[in-house]
């Protein structure tokens, strides 16, 4: 190798224009690896700003491989895709005024496949928080925030009516404040389970199951406030913290061994975020609590149903619980469980997470169909449309979302949506005929 060949200087790297080693010409094209990438010609302010936010750091790590695109549920119904976020920010768009900021449901499927661990579960809330601070929040979402702030639930119902669902439970549901003694299980009922008509069905079924299992349980009643995890993911960190402080105050007031929750979002909040705010304890999703007890349940009828199961993003993919719900379903006499193509870690998002629950109108302008509608079609394709098919769920957001989607996709009467506790409760009743 001779040293008298011309040398080309590219940044700090020196490369020979022509190199021959042992008689073999190994010259490369000089600019391929060592020159500045064209992308640095774009303004860097937006990327610098995003990555300066607590949680925004990983956006810069994206190398545009695109693995996130086909697994993003929103990408299936529109132009949005996680990779585009990086591309937009690289081009100087800080996303504060971009509708894309609100389309991510924080389902986490992109993060699952990302070789660079770019994490929208942290990036989106970080940027959204800045939008919230500037008052740039879609109206529908503002309304839910306002309700959470004023009433402690996203519906805006009176907090004094939080335990009104008890009336139809047919079993006593003790309030921990009235019990005046420690309990084994403090049952955190959650927002939709407390207030939404279909959520209340699940609450009542759960109350009957806990009673049948002779569980020593109580609820907080009016002292319970929203877990507000979805508000946190939608960027309203302060609101999340405010409600967390109230819940933690209630948790500390009473003695209990473990907290059993209906809502995967509450599970995520209590397990992964409340410790940072000063409360730590055993938290179980109701499927995790019931699964080891299922053999003790006396089933009195067979349901004879073709059932498929929708993994909630914040129970399954983001908290790794796939088995407990399936163990429960398989134990119910007459349940024939079939998986949908998108299942477990690759479960398809219902569209309700990360604030999506309160952005329906906003999102509608940017997608061809709701994620819940796409999921219902998948369920119908899996369990058939003869009326014996069930889309089973383990998240209180789902009955209302999926039942609306059943109607809007023209599948009314062809498939039903049931919480797992409703199916257990159904099989515990004597046969109808």
């Amino acid at each position, binding site marked *: 190798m001779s040293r008298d060949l011309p040398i080309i200087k590219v940044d700090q790297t020196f490369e020979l224009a022509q190199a021959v080693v042992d008689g073999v010409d190994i010259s490369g094209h000089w600019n391929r690896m060592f020159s500045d990438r064209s992308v640095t010609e774009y303004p860097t302010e937006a990327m610098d700003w995003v990555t300066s936010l607590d949680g925004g750091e990983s956006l810069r790590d994206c190398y545009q491989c695109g693995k996130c695109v086909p697994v993003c549920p929103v990408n299936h119904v529109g132009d949005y895709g996680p990779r585009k976020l990086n591309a937009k920010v690289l081009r100087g768009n800080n996303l504060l005024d971009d509708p894309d900021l609100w389309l991510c449901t924080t389902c986490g499927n992109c993060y699952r496949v990302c070789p660079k661990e770019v994490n929208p579960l942290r990036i989106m809330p970080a940027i959204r928080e800045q939008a919230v601070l500037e008052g740039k*929040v879609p109206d529908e979402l503002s309304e839910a925030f306002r309700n959470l702030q004023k009433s402690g639930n996203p519906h805006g119902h009176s907090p004094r009516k939080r335990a009104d669902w008890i*009336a139809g439970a047919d079993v006593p549901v003790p309030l921990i404040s009235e019990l005046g003694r420690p309990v084994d299980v403090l049952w955190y009922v959650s927002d939709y389970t407390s207030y939404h008509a279909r959520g209340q069905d699940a609450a009542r079924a759960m109350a009957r199951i806990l009673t049948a299992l002779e569980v020593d349980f109580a609820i907080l009643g009016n002292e319970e406030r929203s877990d507000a995890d979805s508000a946190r993911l939608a960027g309203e960190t302060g609101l999340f913290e*405010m409600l967390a402080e109230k819940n933690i105050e209630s948790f500390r007031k009473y003695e209990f061994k473990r907290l059993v929750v209906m809502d995967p979002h509450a599970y995520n909040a209590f397990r992964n975020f409340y410790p940072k705010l000063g409360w730590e304890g055993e938290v179980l999703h109701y499927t995790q609590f019931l699964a080891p007890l299922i053999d003790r349940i006396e089933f009195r009828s067979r349901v004879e149903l073709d059932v498929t199961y929708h993994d909630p993003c914040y129970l399954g993919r983001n908290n790794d619980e796939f088995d407990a719900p399936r163990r429960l379903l398989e134990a119910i006499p007459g349940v024939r469980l079939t998986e949908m193509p998108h299942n477990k870690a690759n479960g398809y998002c219902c569209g309700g997470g990360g604030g999506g629950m309160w952005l329906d109108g906003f999102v509608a302008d940017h997608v061809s169909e709701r994620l819940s509608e796409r999921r219902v079609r998948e369920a119908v394709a899996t369990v058939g449309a003869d009326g014996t098919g069930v889309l089973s769920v383990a998240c209180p957001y789902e009955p209302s979302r999926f039942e609306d989607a059943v109607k809007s996709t023209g599948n009314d009467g062809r498939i039903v949506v049931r919480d797992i506790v409703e199916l257990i409760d159904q099989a515990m009743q004597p046969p109808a005929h």
Partner: protein
Amino acid sequence: MDYVVLLKQVPDLAEELEIDADGTGLDREWLSFVASEWDEYALEEALLLRDQGHGGTVTCLALGVETGDVDELLATCLARGADRVIKVGSFEAPPDSHTAAAAFADALAHVHYDLILTGVQAIDDLDGQVGPLLATRLDLPHVSVVTHIALAHHHTTVTVHQEYAGGIVAEFEATLPAVLGVQTSRETPRYAPVSRIRQLMKTATIEAMAGGGGAGSGLVIEAMAIPETGSTAEMISGNPQAIAERIAAILSERGIGTAVAR
């Protein structure tokens, strides 16, 4: 155009209300407090007027009452977009309207204003007198229960609506400066992000001014009680079919039309 908005906190009706040991007031120890709804309308109107081309500043005043959290109230005003917030005087409990008006008048001797807005009334006393009493002390024109606040282009007058029964609307014109008791705002009061309120609670400047001295209303609350539940109401429960049948039965019992539950 400089706007002044007077605000206060009232008990949060989301919580259970209890009467105190004296039987003359609410037990405030366990109450939580929220901004008075009508005061929020007044602030929203001031912000809308400022931002819709009239310019100027919005200054919010609240009495330094020990119950509740006046700092949070004022931080919320800043989070919504107010320019300046001032805590006036120091009170153990919310004073009567005469004392409140006197305190605000003292503070307003040091604050420039063209238009003073406050909620027409508040749920804790249903008195509605702070606006009129303040206007009297400052010798300003005053209109209560107003909507549709509009400024003339030369900023010398304000026009407002009062809505009467039977769909009749009156329009008033008042010379500025003036005091208005606001019934409602054109738009729902904007959301104040809790993240922003919490940030401002740590960083914002809340000015303090002296004000007050017992003006006194001469009124004394002798007793306060929770209304006794009457026994005449029948709560109808059950499924929709059962409820409909019961309603139909009641109507036919009383001979009101012919009702059949279907």
